[in-house]
Every structure is written in structure tokens, then in C-alpha cells.
């Protein structure tokens, strides 16, 4: 794979992860536990969809095949999406929403921090902007982890259950795709494996403070690449543009 194709794929991974978590959070609109939290989660949905828009627009330019961010969002099938499986996981309850968000926020903070020093100026500039949003997201989700962990037995049990269920999907964050070796070597993107130690420390610190246990990793986690949820999510997200291809606002 040449560098241009590799960068396209890398940008798709970043963009798709943001697009899918943005959609999942948008499903919380009008379903938050209280009005204020409903608005906060919807704001985060908009932040992630905004990041996806910028990343997929850039991806379209890199690919140089005339595809816009809308084409990439609405006219690809599930097997072409490169998002982390973590962000597809459904909004089972509020603990799942917060747990999924926290695990992602810590990862994105570390990733964007490194990407903001990319040798690709455009990517570095984007990452620096995204980082500010992610730092705030992490502050918000970490505070909720602490509240639920130190709340009632019910909230503690649900939070621990959500983390245990989501944990296997975090292994994927730290696997370097062999196709990106050149990008890593030339300092365009960081190595994913480098993020793991600090991610683990930051997550462990918040969970311990909250009275929660670090879930156990399993050897099978690395090969976990199936999730049944993406097709359902895309069916809803892509319905309108696919049914009415020429629809305009």
C-alpha cells in the first residue's frame, strides 16, 4: 500500500470512529437521565460528528477520487467502515453510555496529543483542535464514572458490568495496522501500541478512585473483530440519503 492509500485508510479509521460514536450519542437525544445531561450528550454527539466531517473531508481529498465526506458517510457498506468496534456498542443503559465514552475519551486525548505533533501539518492542526474537545469530554465522563462508582450499590454494579462488557473492545485501540508502518516511521501518525501504557494508567486511576475494578483482559480480545451492531446502525443512519439520493435540504 502506498503512503497516500495508507493515509486515506488511517483517516477513515479516525473519521468513522467519530461518526459512529456521534450517531450513538445522538440516539440519546431526548433519552438522557435529566435535561442537562441530555444536552451535554447531544453536544458531544455534535463534537464527534464535527470531527468526523473534517476527517472524512480530508480523507476524500487524500483519496482524490471525488468522494465527499457525505459520500463516505452515507454511501459505504458496513464492511468498508473502519471504526473501532467499541463505539458501535449499543446504549444499553446510562452506565454503558458513560463507560464507552470514558474509555474512548482517554484514548482520544492521548491519540490527539500525539497526532498534534504529526509531520503532516494539516493533520497536526486538526488534532490540536479536537484535543480541546476530548479533554472536556474526558472530564465529563470521568466525573460520571466516579459518581456512579461511589453512588449506590445499584449504580456501582451497573457501572462495573458495563465496563466488563465493553473491555474486550478496547484491545483494538492499541493494535498497529501493518499497512500504516510507513506512516508511523515518517512521524505522520503515532504508533497505537505506544498509547497503551498511559491509557491503562489513566483509566486505572479513575476506576480505582471510583471503587471500580479494572476488568481482566483476555487473550481472545485481540482477535475480536465481529460486532453485530454496525449494520443496524448504518441502516438507520444511511436510510434517507440512500432512499432519496438527490434529496436536498
Amino acid at each position: 500500500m502506498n503512503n497516500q492509500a495508507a493515509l486515506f485508510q488511517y483517516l477513515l479509521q479516525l473519521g468513522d470512529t467519530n461518526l459512529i460514536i456521534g450517531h450513538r450519542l445522538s440516539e440519546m437525544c431526548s433519552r438522557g437521565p435529566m435535561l442537562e445531561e441530555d444536552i451535554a450528550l447531544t453536544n458531544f454527539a455534535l463534537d464527534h460528528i464535527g470531527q468526523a466531517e473534517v476527517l472524512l473531508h480530508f480523507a476524500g481529498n487524500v483519496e482524490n477520487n471525488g468522494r465527499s465526506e457525505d459520500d463516505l458517510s452515507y454511501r459505504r457498506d458496513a464492511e468498508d467502515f473502519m471504526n473501532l468496534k467499541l463505539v458501535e456498542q449499543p446504549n444499553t443503559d446510562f452506565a454503558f453510555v458513560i463507560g464507552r465514552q470514558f474509555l474512548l475519551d482517554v484514548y482520544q486525548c492521548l491519540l490527539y496529543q500525539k497526532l498534534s505533533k504529526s509531520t503532516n501539518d494539516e493533520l497536526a492542526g486538526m488534532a490540536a483542535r479536537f484535543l480541546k474537545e476530548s479533554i472536556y469530554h474526558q472530564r465529563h465522563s470521568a466525573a460520571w464514572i466516579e459518581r456512579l462508582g461511589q453512588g449506590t450499590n445499584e449504580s456501582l454494579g451497573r457501572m462495573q458490568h458495563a465496563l466488563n462488557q465493553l473491555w474486550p473492545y478496547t484491545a483494538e485501540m492499541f493494535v498497529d495496522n501493518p499497512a500504516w508502518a510507513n506512516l508511523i516511521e515518517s512521524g505522520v501518525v503515532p504508533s497505537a501500541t505506544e498509547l497503551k501504557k498511559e491509557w491503562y494508567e489513566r483509566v486505572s486511576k479513575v476506576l480505582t478512585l471510583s471503587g471500580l475494578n479494572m476488568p481482566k483482559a483476555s487473550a481472545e480480545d485481540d482477535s475480536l473483530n465481529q460486532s453485530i451492531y454496525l449494520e443496524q446502525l448504518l441502516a438507520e443512519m444511511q436510510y434517507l440519503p440512500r432512499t432519496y439520493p438527490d434529496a436536498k435540504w
Partner: protein
Amino acid sequence: MSDKNSQGPVWEVFTQKKSGQAFQHAGSLHAFDREMALENARDLYTRRDKPFGLWVVPASAIVAVSSEDSEAFFDPSDDKTYRHPTFYDIPEEVKNL
């Protein structure tokens, strides 16, 4: 969760546009703790324009004049023109007074 406090206590939100300017009341919200109140204030009241400062105050900490006391508190002061600082020229350099 059915009692009227299930959303948490009420907090009042104040925002400051620029350094040195007075904080202005922006609105109110529900939150269970200080951090939640500050984050909710950020998400509800600061997303459209970037303020310089942000305060949240528990509504229960505010002491207010009740409407029946209103006359005794406020009426005596507005009929004496010498009490109003309208006889001074304010230099142009002084902004936001």
C-alpha cells in the same frame, strides 16, 4: 426517583463576557454536585459565545427580598434625585462602569 428533587438541587449560573466586567445572570439548572453544576452550566450557557468567566451558585445560598417586603426595601430611594450619580461626567476612557 419520583419526588420533585430527582433532578438535584437548583443552581444559578453567572457568566462574564470579558475580564473585569460584571458577572451577569444567565439562567439556572439542576445538578447534584459542584462539578456537575459547572459542566452543566458550560453545556447549557456557554456553547454559543465564549465567555471569560463562569460561576455557579447554589440557589439555596441566595438571600432574596420577598415581594411583600418590596415596598419597604425599594420605594424610599427613587424619589431623591441627589441620590443618583447623574451629576458627574464620566471620562470616555472609563468603560463598563
